Each structure stands twice: as structure tokens, then as C-alpha cells.
């Protein structure tokens, strides 16, 4: 019996909790990609680097706060800096839209033109981020590291296996729930949100209603920039910040958005968790878990790890390919937004 409990604790510690928090980060990233797709009708390849840029801004402000001797008690100082990072990201997104995408909207360019433009924007953001903060690894999480420590848990329960919950993981999940609840409320209830849905549903008709298309586009960028920065900062707090890693996150984020059905907010959230759980489960070494639940003589010798963590991006890639082959519309097939 205790073996089973120990096994569950082990699984929670190494799979459930990390995947929940990683899934939340992907979900927020995918939500931004999906909103852009739903309203502006193109896949924004610059989203990963928008995350990096917003996070970079937040880190610089965090350092500034540190220099001024400001801290946030047990919570990471970056949370104080986050609103400012978001504002900077919003400004960058709006300027980019004005300078780049608006031109193509006026021309009524094909979606693929927007996608290529976004690749250009991606390289630009990429360069800006590296100019300011370099290419190296930055750790900027401070405050209390753990909400629940391994030793505390063991003492509390008397189990052999420990369970730790990092502050960043708890913050990630709480923030994700709050942000997602807000976005859904916004889309369902406010006039602005309904205007976004209407615009996404039928652009021709939206143009012939009181909906101001420029405003809808602006608000979409504002939301996307905020979501990107929040996702990026949460990921950075949880792991660390490195521009190249954020660029690579584009793959699991697009996989998440597409699994759920691109253009569908609910699908983006579900997709984020599907991708995160798959990735963590496939790269987890199951040896310890299996040893605990099977009789001693059946314990495996190898690590029982399907894929090395170095190859974790292959998981997103496989999911992406399978979904595109089997069910290109994603699991939440139907109307966008």
C-alpha cells in the first residue's frame, strides 16, 4: 500500500507537477498564437521571440528594481516587473503592426505573405533581445524557492518518496488560471471581445458594422503581447531565460495550438497540456515508478525512458505531424474563437 502511495508521490513530483506548470506556460503561449490566427488569419512565427522580448524587458526591469533595493518578499521580484514588461511588449507589438503588418492588410495580401513577414519580424525581435541581454542563460527567480520542500513533505507524511512544489510552479498555475479565466470572460462578455469574435467570424460583415477593424486588430496585438510576456516570464522563472530556448518553444506552442484546433482558445489550453504531458511522460525515466508498483523480481533493469530529454522537441514534432495527417482541424473542430 505504501508502495503505491510512494509511486503516486513519485509520479506527482516528476511528471504531474512539472507537466502542469509547463503545460500552463505552453497554454498561454498557444492562446496568443491562436488569437492572432483567429483575428488576423496568419500563423505568427514571431510569437516565441515576442515571448523572449517581453521576458527580456521584464528581467531588465527586475534588475533595476534589485538595484533600487526593491524586492517582493517571498515572491519573485519579476512579478512586480511583469506589468512593465507587458507594457513594453504591447508597445513593440503595436509598433510592429503599424510598421509591417498594416501595410500588408491594406494590400489584402495572402496569409502566406503575413507568415513570411512574421518570420522577418521574428529575426528582428531575436536580434533586439540579444543586443540587450546577450545570448546567455539568465536566472532571475528570487524570493522563496519552494512552497513545499521534499523534507517537509517526508516529515509530514512519513513516506519515503518526497514531493516538492516550487514557488514558480505554483505561481505559473495560479496565474494561468486567472489569465485564462480573464481572456474567456473578455471574449464572451465584453463588447470588445464580441467585436473580436465577430471580426474573426465574418470580416466582411464586421467591416459593415460599427466594428472598427483597426481597433480590433490593436486589441488583438495587445492581448497577444500580454499573453506572450506572461508565458515567457513564467517559463523563465520556472526554468531559466535563454533567447534560443524561447525561439525553440515555438514548436511545442504551435503543436499545442494546432492539436486543439488553431483559432480556438479552448483548444489552445487543452493542446498546451496534451503536449506538455506527452513531452514529460515520454522523456521521464519510469524505472523508479515501475519498481515500486511491480513485485521485486519484475523490476526493470534499464531506465525505461522512451526518449532522452535532449530529444524532447521531437515529441511536439511527432504530435504536430500526426495531428496534421489524421485530424488537421484539431480536436476542437469547428468555428474559430
Amino acid at each position: 500500500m505504501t508502495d503505491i502511495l510512494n509511486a503516486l508521490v513519485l509520479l506527482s513530483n516528476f511528471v504531474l507537477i512539472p507537466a502542469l506548470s509547463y503545460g500552463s506556460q505552453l497554454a498561454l503561449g498557444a492562446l496568443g498564437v491562436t488569437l492572432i490566427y483567429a483575428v488576423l488569419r496568419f500563423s505568427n512565427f514571431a510569437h516565441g521571440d515576442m515571448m523572449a522580448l517581453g521576458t527580456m524587458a521584464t528581467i531588465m526591469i527586475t534588475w533595476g528594481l534589485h538595484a533600487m533595493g526593491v524586492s517582493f518578499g517571498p515572491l519573485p521580484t519579476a512579478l512586480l516587473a511583469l506589468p512593465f514588461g507587458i507594457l513594453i511588449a504591447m508597445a513593440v507589438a503595436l509598433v510592429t503592426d503599424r510598421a509591417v503588418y498594416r501595410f500588408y492588410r491594406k494590400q489584402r495580401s495572402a496569409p502566406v505573405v503575413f507568415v513570411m513577414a512574421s518570420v522577418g519580424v521574428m529575426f528582428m525581435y531575436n536580434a533586439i533581445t540579444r543586443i540587450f541581454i546577450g545570448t546567455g542563460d539568465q536566472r532571475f527567480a528570487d524570493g522563496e524557492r519552494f512552497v513545499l520542500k521534499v523534507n517537509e513533505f517526508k516529515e509530514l507524511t512519513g513516506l519515503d518518496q518526497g514531493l516538492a512544489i516550487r514557488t514558480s510552479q505554483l505561481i505559473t498555475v495560479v496565474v494561468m488560471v486567472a489569465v485564462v479565466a480573464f481572456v474567456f470572460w473578455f471574449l464572451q462578455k465584453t463588447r470588445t471581445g464580441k467585436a473580436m469574435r465577430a471580426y474573426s467570424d465574418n470580416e466582411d460583415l464586421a467591416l459593415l458594422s460599427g466594428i472598427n477593424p483597426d481597433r480590433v486588430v490593436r486589441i488583438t496585438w495587445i492581448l497577444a503581447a500580454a499573453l506572450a510576456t506572461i508565458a515567457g516570464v513564467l517559463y523563465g522563472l520556472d526554468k531559466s531565460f535563454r533567447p534560443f530556448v524561447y525561439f525553440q518553444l515555438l514548436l511545442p506552442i504551435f503543436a499545442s495550438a494546432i492539436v486543439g484546433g488553431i483559432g480556438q482558445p479552448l483548444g489552445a489550453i487543452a493542446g498546451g497540456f496534451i503536449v506538455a504531458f506527452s513531452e514529460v511522460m515520454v522523456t521521464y525515466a519510469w524505472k523508479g515508478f515501475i519498481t515500486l508498483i511491480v513485485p521485486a523480481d519484475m523490476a526493470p533493469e534499464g531506465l525505461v525512458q522512451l526518449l532522452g530529454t535532449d530529444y524532447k522537441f521531437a515529441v511536439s514534432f511527432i504530435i504536430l505531424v500526426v495531428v496534421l495527417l489524421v485530424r488537421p482541424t484539431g480536436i476542437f473542430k469547428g468555428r474559430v474563437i
Partner: protein
Amino acid sequence: MIRVDNLNMHFGGIRAVDGASIEIAKGSITGLIGPNGAGKTTLFNVIAGHYTPTSGHVYLDGEDVTGLSPHELFHQGLLRTFQIAHEFSTLTVRENLMMVPDNQPGETLWDTWFKSGTVRAREAEVRAKADEVIEFLEISHVANELAGNLSGGQKKLLELGRTMMVDAKIVFLDEVGAGVNRTLLNTIGDAILRLNRERGYTFCMIEHDMDFIGRLCDPVIVMAEGKVLTVGKPDEVMANEAVIEAYLGRGLKNKPQRGVTA
């Protein structure tokens, strides 16, 4: 009210509108007929700002509005409906109507959060207006239905309803009567007449049903192959040789007949 001056709209080699000039008088219900492919819808699309014409001009109340966006024209009181009914399928009928009036305070993030009182007050106004329109069109039973689930005829009514949500100067109706049953057609006809008389709407409508046109329209403009053939009272144009020729040239099936709605 509207003057279209020597308008050309070419798509590659296709001259969809080929040097058309028309005039729509204030307060009139002007009909626009012609065989399929005559360029009627394209003309509407140019007037309503969907296409920038190859050449020519559109004037609204004497002002050159050529090349303005649909949104800007809407703002000036120029509304149109679509040949294939458009709706926001994921919003309810009432929400569809409430979407129409522009510059509602709830549209900016700032107002949504910091002036929620104003936003709510205006929203209540717009809602009352929407309910009035719903009443007028006798579609109360589907007010909370998602617009995507409506029947074709009901969608046409909703299209008409949209134009009633604001004070329009001129409304372009693209085959509102097509594919609609007799009873509903009469409702639509009554609504158009009432809007014209009580609220001073000017209409320009594309139709194929000559009964419907005869009842509502004066004058009627006839288009064929991108050009204006003739303008006159419904009976006059129906008796016009050139008009009969244009329809016959296209085969009998497109000949306007009494009692045919499509």
C-alpha cells in the same frame, strides 16, 4: 443622393462593370435588375467600398467617396446587405444586432474598465433598440438563438434588421427576397416600405421577382453586361425591347417572370 459616374470595375479581362453611370434619388426605392452576371453585385461592392474601381467615381450627397473603406462608408450612413446572407454565426440574433451601431463606448479597453457605468448605460440603449427591431421583424422567438442556426429566410430578415439598428441614409439590398417564401417576402416588403416612409431611408435593391419590384420600386435600373441598359418605371422597362433582348440573349431561364422568387 448617390451618383455613380462612368464606373469601370475590371477583373483581369472580365469587365464586370463597364462604364456604368447611375443616379439614386433621395427618398426613392430604386430597383436594380438584369440577367445573372450583369455586374449588379459588383456595382454594389464598388459603391460600398469593397473594391476600389478600375476607374470612375462614386458620389454620396455630392461628395466623392470613391475608394473609402466599407467601415468609413458605414459611418456616413451607407449600408448594404449581402446576396448570400452574412451573419456572425457564433453570436445570438440579439448580439448580432447589438454589434451594429458604431463607436459604442465598450469598444476600447479603457472604457470597458474605467467607465463601466457609461458602457452599461449605452449597452442598455442598444439592447432596447435591438429588441425594437426584433419586434418589428417578428423574430422574437429566435432572439436568443445563435444566428448560425437560423433558416435562410430568417438570415435575410436579420440582414434587414442590421440596417435598422442605425439611422441609415441609404441601404443597398442585394437580393433580400431571393429564396424567401411568399409570407416572409411580404413582411420584408412591408418593412422596406415602412422604413422608407417613416424613417426616410433611401433604398437601392437588386431583385429578380418582378411582382416584388413592381410593388416597391420606382424607378428601375436595368443592367446587362456591365452597362446600364435603361431606366424607367417597372412597367416601362418590362415592355422595353432592349431589356427583353438582354434577358432572352441569356436564355429563357433568366427571363424575369411573375411569381418567381429566385
